């Protein structure tokens, strides 16, 4: 592995963090995920994340709280990814001209879908739905309005709201 400038100290602290808490974190994740294999993967990812954060490891006062916070966000992402992937494959299998996507294609699309999903995460359900129908399904405002039981003017408002939300998020970095 490549380490930044203070390789020896960073490596040392990480090793210490790892040896003292890896077992505990693994058990913590296993309890929540109910799967030893995924738990081991996510525990590994958690430590990788700690490393890439380049934080001041010796200064962490509550290492387990710190690790579980990171592990928790990875776990939420993991569930999100699973939910989207399952829904995507289900939707594909329902299409008449169904053919199975190649692993690469699947990976690429999943990446895009996750990015879109994260972007729209905090929008109200109707706004999110209107935006998805317009942008992915190419539905007209009239059709969306009918499906959502709102006026076309409201759909247009939803679209502006969704885009403004994305713009603000992007600006916030």
């Amino acid at each position, binding site marked *: 592995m490549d380490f930044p400038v203070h390789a020896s100290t960073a490596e040392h602290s990480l090793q210490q963090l790892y040896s003292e808490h890896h077992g505990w974190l693994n058990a913590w994740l296993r309890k*929540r995920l109910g799967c030893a294999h995924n738990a081991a993967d996510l525990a590994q990812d958690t430590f990788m994340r700690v490393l890439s954060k380049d934080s001041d490891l010796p200064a962490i*006062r509550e290492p387990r709280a710190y690790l579980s*916070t990171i592990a*928790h966000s990875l776990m*939420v992402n993991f*569930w*999100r990814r699973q*939910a*989207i*992937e399952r*829904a*995507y494959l*289900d*939707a*594909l299998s*329902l*299409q008449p*001209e169904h053919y199975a*996507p190649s692993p690469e*294609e699947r990976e*690429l*699309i999943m990446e*895009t*879908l996750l*990015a*879109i*999903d994260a*972007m*729209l995460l*905090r929008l*109200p*359900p109707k706004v*999110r*739905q209107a935006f*998805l*129908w*317009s*942008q*992915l*399904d*190419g539905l*007209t*405002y009239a059709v969306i309005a009918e499906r959502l039981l709102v006026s*076309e003017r409201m759909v*247009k*408002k939803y*679209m*502006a*709201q969704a*885009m*403004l*939300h*994305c*713009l*603000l*998020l*992007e*600006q*916030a*970095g």
Partner: protein
Amino acid sequence: MKAPALDYAVLQQAADWFATLSGGAVSEPQRQAWRLWLAASPEHAAAWQRVEAISGQFERVPGDRRRAAGQALSAAGSSRRRAIGMLALLCGGGLLALATARRGTLQAWAANQRTATGEVRETRLADGTQLWLNTNSAADIDYSASLRRVQVLRGEVLLESAHDTLVPARPLVVDSQQGRMRALGTRFSVRQGEGYTQLSVFDGAVQISPVQGAAQQVISAGQQVRFTAAGIGAVQAAEPGRQAWSHGVLLADNRRLDDFIAELAEYTPGYLGCDPQIADLRLVGAYPLADREKIFAALQSSLPVRIRHRTPWWTVVEPRTDA
């Protein structure tokens, strides 16, 4: 921040143009007006580029996969809400409960709403009215047969009212310690201060009736006002950036650093202060409320300041003394 920050107003215009042009039936005068807007300033062009980058994300899904992708995202949206809700129960609350609470969950009528420091919560009320609770806020929702009533107990709420589901429509009112505000089809925020109420109206209009005194006043879109139990202050222009928190964003438009830090402190557990020596530095940008470290990093890279964590609960923004 990386790219130059654009004005809220410009982003809003860009989003509105996007909504106009995505509708399908675009008239030639509309297109002409859009071109004029686009050419009017480099900021407009920059904002439009960002709009295109965002909608360009959808182009990355191949045409024959779009339908499935759309269905997957719609389905995942609702199933995730359920999954995360269940997880929260299993883990006994904590962080996960916070994650669910932030989502627009359908709340029961007569619910008691509360947020912790740093939390912003969105709730959809039974009639479709959207309610956002700012950090460290509390409100009672009380819907009866004749009245839709929101009582602000602490902090700030933002409302976007919906048409009532009942006929005849019941009035929608917000009560603070100082008086009653009646929504006239609208988007507005109410902040409960110490001994006063601040009302900002972004859309529609709101009628104020202070607790004492018969004087009523209608405040319209774009206006903001403070009132006490006894009377209503001078009407000022509402700051559109005041509602950015409902998007999880803190906006600064040439804002004083101490002012900005004071607002950020409302979202921060523990103490967050600003050294008076740097209080009048100015800053611009949109900052993600959920990621305080990112805000600190941005401050340190754009201003001559350093962030000092004396303890995990005590943070001070100080002048940077470059040796």
